């Protein structure tokens, strides 16, 4: 026990532990279907020339999604719901979530879209809640992931691929 502890205190092992932690965490995100293959595609696009690509895209996604969710909340708050508007926004959200591989949000969007097509206000409100929930979950997860990555980079270790 003590030996292990001792080892872990060394710098290199700190990095490897962080690395392991990151790998495990990433795997868990995939396992729990927060992320899908598309997220890997994003990570592939990240390289020395473009070291913050994933964070950039995801940040853009956060910003965009929050705007869309706001608009959706507003749209569904109206006396007469403009389903076209709802449709449009949901489509956007669905497109971007699919693009970055946030698949649980994407799925929630599909359900949302179905409700909207049926002009089912109740269902839309429920879906909106669901989308919000999934969004905040994945946001947390991704932020944690980025934090871990940052830590790792700060510790001098390369990001695991």
């Amino acid at each position, binding site marked *: 026990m003590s030996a292990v502890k001792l080892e872990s205190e060394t710098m290199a092992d700190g990095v490897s532990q962080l690395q392991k932690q990151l790998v495990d965490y990433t795997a868990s995100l995939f396992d729990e279907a927060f992320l899908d293959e*598309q997220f890997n595609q*994003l990570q592939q696009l990240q390289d020395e020339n*473009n070291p913050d*690509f994933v964070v*950039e895209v995801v940040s853009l*996604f956060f910003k965009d999604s929050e705007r869309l969710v706001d608009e959706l909340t507003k749209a569904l708050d109206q006396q007469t719901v403009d389903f076209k508007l709802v449709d449009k926004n949901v489509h*956007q959200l669905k497109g971007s979530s*699919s*693009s*970055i591989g946030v698949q649980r949000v994407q799925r929630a969007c599909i359900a949302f879209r179905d409700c909207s097509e049926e002009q089912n206000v109740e269902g839309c409100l429920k879906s909106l809640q669901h989308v919000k929930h999934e969004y905040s979950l994945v946001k947390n997860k991704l932020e944690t992931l980025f934090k871990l990555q940052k830590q790792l980079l700060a510790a001098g270790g390369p990001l695991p691929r």
Partner: protein
Amino acid sequence: MVWEMETDNIEDMDMEVLPSMWPEDIGADAGKQFNIDKPGQDQDMLEEVTFIEEPTIVDFKRLLELTNYTDKGSSQLAFLVKHWEYKQANAVRLLREELDILSKQRQEVELKKLEILEEHQFEEESYGGDKRPISILDEVYDIWLDIAPKKHDVVVQSKRVEIEAEYDTVVYWKQRAMHLEKLLEASAEREQILVDKLQESIQSLERQSSPVEELSQILKRADNFLHFVLQNAPVVIGHQDKELRYRFIYNHFPSLQEEDIIGRTDVEIFTGAGVKESQDFKKEVLEKGLPAKREITFETPLFGSKTFLIYVEPVFSKAGETIGINYMGMDVTDQVRKREKMAKLREEIAVQKAKETELNKTIHITEETMRAKQMLATMSHEIRSPLSGVVSMAEILTTTKLDREQRQLLDVMLSSGDLVLQLINDILDLSKVESGVMKLEATKFRPREVVKHVLQTAAASLQKILTLEGHVAEDVPVEVIGDVLRIRQILTNLISNAIKFTHEGKVGIRLYVVSDPSLEEGERCPQKLNADQSTVSENGLKEDADQEGFHVDGPYQNHSLNDEPRTPAKSEVSMDADQEEEPQTTTVWLRCDVYDTGIGIPENALPSLFRRYMQVSADHARKYGGTGLGLAICKQLVELMGGQLTVSSQEHCGSTFTFVLPYKVSTSSDHSDDPDEVTDMANHDAATDEVAESFFQFQPRTLGSLFSSNGSSRTQKLLPHKIGFCGSHKLNGFSQNSYSFPQNNIIPEEMASVENGCSAIDVAETLSEPESSASHISNHNCKTPAHADKQGQDDTNNQFQDSRNTDSSYHAEPSREVSVAAKLREPQGTCKRQEKSDADSESTSSNISKSTSKPKILLVEDNKINVMVTQNMMKRLGHSIDVVNNGIEAVRAVQHCSYNLILMDVHMPIMDGLQTTRIIRSFEETGNWDAAEKAGIELTVPSQDALQNGHSYTPSGNRIPIIAMTANAFSESADECFASGMDSFVPKPITFQKIKERLEQYLPD
């Protein structure tokens, strides 16, 4: 007193005798087989029935004999006789009794008389003598013992009491004599009465019937009853003798006269089916001596078709010999018919049930299969995505700095990955076809080009010393309509198969018109081939080479020919006529043979050849690899397109795969207002191309070239493209060597450059295709060559350069590029292309090493995140792209700038991708932006500008490849895309692999 007594006695006797007269019934015992009523009892009933006696036809003599000789007959007779005897005995006994009584009485009387006389003579003795006789008689008639003594006692006593006169006096005697006299008188009287009675009795006895009469009466009654019972029964009863001649027959429905039957056999009487059988059956019974039943169907002219149930029993003589048969037949035609109907019904029901079960089973199996297939497809799909990731990453890895060992490992990895991908694609293709999801596209394409490109592609990756050749008959239309991608897939599949199994010799494609699929068998291809070859040598000097721009090198230059003398089949002529005269589309059947001189296919493997996962043997599978799906897919595809795929093969000699497909031929757009036509004339270069027979040949590369690429297969594949440039120069100037790449020293052979030259053309062609920049190059070329050349040169050069410099992965799969190129190259004339490539190469020759720009790509996408991701991916792939956010912006962008490719989101606000595409297509076809204006987009570019920018479109059919990006990868959505004029689609989210594939397809390099 005595008299009275006697009367009593007689009365007694009467009472006793009556019951012992005739037995009441001769056959009263129960259980007798022949039961008959007492005569008279039912006379009424019998009288009411009218008997028809004719049916019974009897040979009486025979009957007599029978009754004499057969057991049965004699027993019957014996029975009757016994009865008769019994009756007779009874009668005799009764008569005897009567007689006895009478004689007794007479004796008595005589005795009495004697007594009287004795009494009269010896009066003393009379008393004693009086008792004796009575006691003796009493003893004799012991039957009457009980009664007689009593009576006699009375009689005796009364006798004694009667004499009252004094004994022994005269008076007494007188009195006594008188009394006796009276007695005597009475006795005589009584005797007289008895005699009368006897007489009467005898008379009545005589009145009784004689035994014969009695017997015949009984028989008659039996006969009557038999008739009564049988009169309507559908039975025939008969007796036949040892020779099976009828001796007796009863038939209620007689159809023959007695003389026709009696004394004859069945065979003599009837003709027709069944007669012989019945005769044989009877014979059998006769021989075996055992009764038997059988059903026999007769089909005689006499009574038609009838089935009889026949019972035949043998008749034995007393000695135990069979002397004939009794036969009884019953007409069971109706029953048999019914029974047969029932049997048939039952059978049908059984069959129905069996079918049902079978059907259920099939349904079940089908369902299972479908499920399994679905599962397979899903699985395959799931596997494909990550796998393509692996492969494409590996491909990217090849572009990085690697040492030799790493490269080799990577090559193995890539080829394995490619194989698995191919397998999965095959599976998906198959399941698509089978589930009916596979949709065929109808696009115009040039069969010659397809053949050429397939061969080129094959030649490019050929690693054997094989000659690849292609023959396209001159009557094959220049352009046909069909699903070119699928056709190419089939051809590529068959060719690569052929190459795989061929170690030396050649592999080739022969394409020619057949008038009808049924007639196609008549045309013998080898002969045609021979003819071709012979004419090749004849016409060797004709100045019509280079029509396709292939036959760059001396020895092979003359293979493609204008061969009017060869036009053999009349079908071709008619075909041509069709083309010329009919303004609309006609259907033409093209037969394509893919032949090789390979290992062939053993006969026993032929049937399973097109089954999936089937390879000729496990050995082959090991040796040659492959998925075993290729042929199955080919077959499915060919059949899907309404054709047929067949194979003929001879082991160790080669195989020929043949498919015949119908294609639509559009004739209207081909000739008249095609601007290319002018170009053709102007260039007088291979003007006859459109109708000429084409012959392509790709000679084996030398070992040198083979070894030159020993580094890796990938680099090897790259070679043709590089060398391609020199090929294209050669087209114009003949100084081919001056243009050869110095670094390519290893391939000095002409053969190599043939092939390379071809690919060069390919490159050139494909370059000129994409709508925007490329097409206006062509326009400039033909109209104002001097002016336009500059821009054209630059563009082409850029692209050439680009193709060389960008990812080698573009080159990695030549087949894809080529197929795309063919698809794009739609309505243009070959000559035009030729001309273009001339121009291009002329200009490029000097600029070849200049650095150039990249193809222009437009991304139409409203989602920022998608834009960001896609942009980065494209960047990664070496492309910078223009981005617009909606359809209107896209239209404007197209107005301002020429793009080589447009990636179009389908679902967009303001104007969606479908409408945008339609507007762009409309512009391409009409040359004006009316559609855009209609949609409310103002033209921001003056038309003059457009002209200056090379937008002076004539409707030439050139198109910018537009690739849809759609969130719904479903087929119907794809249909919509295609219907709007999009060329392809990428399902979202966009991945590296997907976008790369599309770029490879639509961006020529």
